[in-house]
Structure formats: C-alpha cells, structure tokens
C-alpha cells in the first residue's frame, strides 16, 4: 500500500475536522471536529510507523496515548458542554461571548 493513501485519508479527515471546529455552531459538533483532527493525526502516526518499519513501534504506542488522552479530553469537554447548557440554555459556540473585551462587563458575567 503506498504511503500517500493513508496520508490523503488523514489530510481529508483533518480538513473536515478543521471545518467542523471553525464553522459549526453546535458545541458537540465542534468537539466531533476536534476528534476527527486527533484521529487524522493518529492515522499519520500509524502510517509512518509502518512505512519506516520502526522496531519499537513508537508511532503505534504514541497513537494509543493519543486515543487515551482524547477519551479523557472528550469526557471533560462534554462535562463543560453540559454545564454550559444548564447555565445558558444553549450550546451555540458563537453566542458564548462573555469574555469579549468591552467597556462594560455584560449582564451574564456580572451575575
């Protein structure tokens, strides 16, 4: 299998992930975009590990670490999303602008 097949797949997945992060308004979908990007990186790691015939398979081990960390990250992130939904009643990322730099703090921050 030539190297560029998995690389192309990873690139496509990463691009879809970037699109999801930058363009989706729903926080859950943004998180899904982040997962896509992480997994695109995993594909790259595994592909290069196989291509370079690494005796210690550090690429595969690294990919496993990434999967673990991604699981932890998504757990934390979903908890945040849940809290955001409870306080704001929505999870639309572009409406969460409490940290913008303005002359006066908005109502929701003061509260």
């Amino acid at each position, binding site marked *: 299998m030539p190297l560029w097949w998995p690389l192309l797949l990873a690139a496509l997945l990463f691009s879809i992930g970037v699109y999801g*992060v*930058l363009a989706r308004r729903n926080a859950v979908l*943004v998180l899904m975009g982040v997962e896509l990007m992480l997994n695109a990186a995993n594909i790259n790691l595994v592909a290069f590990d196989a291509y370079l015939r690494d005796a210690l398979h550090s690429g595969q081990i690294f990919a496993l670490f990434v999967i673990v960390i991604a699981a932890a990250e998504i757990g934390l992130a979903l908890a945040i999303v849940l809290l955001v939904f409870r306080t704001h009643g929505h999870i639309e*990322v*572009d409406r*969460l*602008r*409490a940290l*913008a*730099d303005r002359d006066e703090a908005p109502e929701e921050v003061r509260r």
Partner: protein
Amino acid sequence: MSVLLLAMLAVPFASAAVVLLIGHRSAGAGKGIAVGGEALALVLACVVAGWHLGSAAPTGHVYASTAAVGPPIQLAFYVDQLSAVMLLLVHVVSFLVQVYSLGYLEHDPRYPSYSSLVAVFTGAMSLVVTADDLWVLLVGWELMGACSYFLIAHHWELPEARAGAVKAFLMTRTADLGLLFGILVLGNRFGSYRISTVMGDITHGALQLDSLWLPALLFLAAAVGKSAQFPLHTWLPDAMPGPTPISALIHAATMVAAGVFLVARTYPMFTNSTSAMTWMAGIAALTMFLAAVYAMFSKDLKRVLAWSTVSQLAYMFGALAVGSWTAAVMHLLAHGAFKALLFLGAGSVIHAVGGSTSMDSMGGLRSRLPDTFVTMTLGFGALAGVVPLVGFFTKDAVIGASLREALDGRQVWTWVAWALFASMVLTAMLTVAYCLRAWLLVFFGDPAPAAEAAEEPAWTMRAPLYLLAVPTTFGGILVAYPELLFGSAHREELFHGVLSTVVTVLVILVGIVVAVAWARRREGDLWRPRPVPHPEVDVAYDVAVVRPVGRLAALTRFYDREVIGGWVDAAAGSAPGLGRVLRLAQNGNVQAYLMVVVVGAVAVAVAAGARS
C-alpha cells in the same frame, strides 16, 4: 593674629547657628547669645583693628588654596588700615543694632531668625572687608545680598516689604554680575585672584593709562548696584518696609558701604582707569542731587533718611572719583556713625508714635522724647554739615578735593569735575534744607494725635543713640589727623582752609535761609510734601527689562504647554485609540480566534515551504 582673625570671622556665623537652633525654645537665651556673640565679635574686631591702625604693616594670610587649572582660588585674608576701620565700623554698628533690637523688636515672634540674620550679615561684611581673594570677597558680597533680602522682607505679611525685598535682591544681584565678570577679567589679566597681588602689580607695573577700563567699569557697576547709585538707586528707598534697625545696619555699616569699600579696596585699578573715574564722577554728581531732591519732598521719615544715604554715598563716590581716597573713607566712617544714629533715632520715634513712618503722625516730640531729640539733633546736624560735628569736616574734605580736581586735576574730564563740584555744593544746600525740614516736622510744631502719648523707649534703645552720638560729635578730630588711622601714606590736608570753609558756611547759611523762607510761606500748614516728577527709571526698567522678560516667559510657557506638552498629550491620547482598534479583535468568539491561529499556521507553513 591669624587665629584671632579667623575667630572674629567665625563668631558671627557660629552665634547665628546657635541662635537659630535654640532661639525658638528659649527666647531669653537666644537674645543673650545673639548679643553676647556680637559683643565677642566686637572685642575680637577691636583687637584685630587696633593691631593694624596707624602705620602698622598689613597682615596677609593664606589658609587654603586650590590646585586646579588656572589661577588658584585661595582662602586668603588681608587686613590693612582700611579693613581695620571698616571692621570697627561694622562691628560697632552691628553690636549697637543687636542691643537696640532687644527693645525695638521685643515682642517679635521671628526674633531668633532676625537676630541670626543680623549676625550672618555682620559676618558677611567682615568677610568682604578682610578678604584677600576676589572669590572670597564675592562670597561675602552675595551673602550680604541674600541677608538683606531676608531682613527687608522680615515683615513678610506686608506686600510692600516683599516687593521691596525682591526689588533689592534683583537689582543688586543684576549689578553683581559686573563684579563676577570683573573678577574673571582681572584673573585672566594678572594670573591671580588675590587683591593684594593684583593691586601690587597694577601699582608697580607701569601699565598704560586706562588699560584697565573694562574691569574698572565692571567693578563700578557692581558698586553702583550695591550702593544704590543712579540708575540703580530705586531699591534703597523701597527697602524701607524692613525693620528700622535693619535700615540702620544696611545704610551705615554693611550693605551700601560695601560698594564704596570695593572701590576703595581696588583703588589702584580705578586710578589707572580715567574713564571709569569719569563715569563715577558723573554718576555721583547726578545721584547726589537727585537723591537730595527726593529727600526734600518725601513725607516718610525713613525715606528721607534713605534718600540722604543715597546722596551721601554719592559724595563718597565723588571723592573717590577725584582721587581723594582718604576723604572718601573718612566720609564713609562718619556717615556710618551719624546715619546709624539717625536711623536708630528714627526707630525710637516710630516706636513712640506707634509704628507709623509718616511725618504727618509726628510733630512736637521735642519734649516727649528728650533723649532722642538731643541725639537726633546731633545726627541731623552732622548730616547737614553743621560746624563742630563730624559731617562738616568730612564733607568739607570731599568738596575741597573736588574743587582741587576741578581747578588743576587730571583724574577726570574737567567739565565733569566742575559739574561734580557744583552738584556737591548744591546738594549740600539741599541737605541742610531737608534735614531742617525733617527735624522741624518731627520735633516741633503741633503734635499729631498719635504723638500725644509718646514716651521714651527702654534704655536698650536709648543707650546706642548716646554711644553713636560720641563719634558723631567728636569724630572731626580724627579728620584733622588721618594718619592716626591710615598711617603716614595718607597724610593729606583734609581741612581745606579758607576756601572750603567759606563755601561750607555759605552753603549752611543758604540752607537755613531756604528752610526758614519755606517755613514762613506755609505757616500753620506745615511743609506739605509736593509731588516731584521722578525720573521714571523704574518705568524704563519695566519697559526695557521686565516686560520683555515677561513676554519671553509667556512664550516659553506657551512652547512648553502647547508644543512639548502637545506631543506628550498626543502620545498619551493615541494609545487608547490604538487600543480601541486592537480591541475589535477581542470579540469573544472562540472560533474567530481559532481561525486566526489556523490561517497563521498555514501562512507560516506556506512561507517555510516556499523558502526551502
């Protein structure tokens, strides 16, 4: 001797410091130390002076010297006959002023600072008269200017006292620039700042005549400012809001005498420079007459005395200008005695009538203040030149010297010498007239309401008057024998025989006739002062100096506020504006931030790829 001299110079400063330190805690101790310190300084000064009077050799001593580039600046002192008599004058008057102030300013809350400033003033004048290095002299000279500023402004709650002090300081300070530049010129020319060295070089150096006109004129400018001669004469009468003992000190012993002393000290330089002498003669001729006219029409007793000081100082400068050093110094000493007497007497009159200096509030005080009357009569007599008193002899010596110069002298231009002589005679007549007028207004006639309850002051204020009356009355003996004071080198014929006696007697007669005629003409209604058109030198200064400086200051202020400050304000104002622009990026949308990060990363990657 040198230790004694140093002690004499240090005692006034030390007592001033001690008085300042403890004076506010214990008024009695402060006064005691002020008077005691001055008494000690007087004793030391008497010893030092007694050592050098007559034909004694002068003492010179260098205590320290700089080793820098150029002529060395030395802490050098030089005491000769002139220093000796000046030391006596300064310390006697200063001691009497300290004693007199005990009564005059008895309840003054600022007494400690007052008496310590008087002590510093005395110390500064001692420094001037004993200094051998020109820079040391300059230090004392400037110290006197500062002290006179503080003392004139003693009653600083009065606006005229503050204004008078500032005026005195600015005018004398401006003139002092002449001394500063004169010192530099002399040091450059002779390679030394020591007065004795420089004067020795001038005396023995066979210099070309008038080659020293520049330093001589510069020194003359400083002396004119310090001694309140035309055109810098206006500060002295305006300094009158100061306490009266201070006026006595300034007019008799310290401040204004320093100008005459400076010329007398550097006299070889002036005899070399005929142009400076001619200027001095012209200034003296103009000043003495002008000041006498003002004194004639002034309503304020202290101002009459102040103008008379200006006029008498002009006599001294006139005598110096016609080459009669001895007559000038003699007149300086005599004037110191009788003018201190007059001012202290005026102080006791003012004290008795409750603080007013206007002669309208006096009158008829002859019987109420007998001691003051007797002593001030002697003082006025000496000022007017009445025959047995000291003023007659010294003024006679001065007038005689000027006549001799006008007849066959070569020191100044002939017509200037004649103008000086004419002005001296005229001024002597006016002096008699204004002395008589002030004397009559104060002591005769109907007493003003304020003068009804006048009483003689305490003995501390009367004793100095009697003590000063002694030299005022008997000082004429010394004039006949100047070699007693100045040694055989100054054995001049100061008593000018028939001619001067005739002139002086004539002058006195004319003066009396003028005063009596004036009295008859305005009987009942006492000599009311009439407005005299002053030559408006103050206006000239205002137009020529004060207003341009004010305008320059306004321009500088404008430049500072609007141009320099404008840049600063603009920089400060632009920072928030710029920040507001940058803030637009901080809109709270996380996805927008990420977009920037992604685009940036892509751009970096593309750039890196393009370069490799």
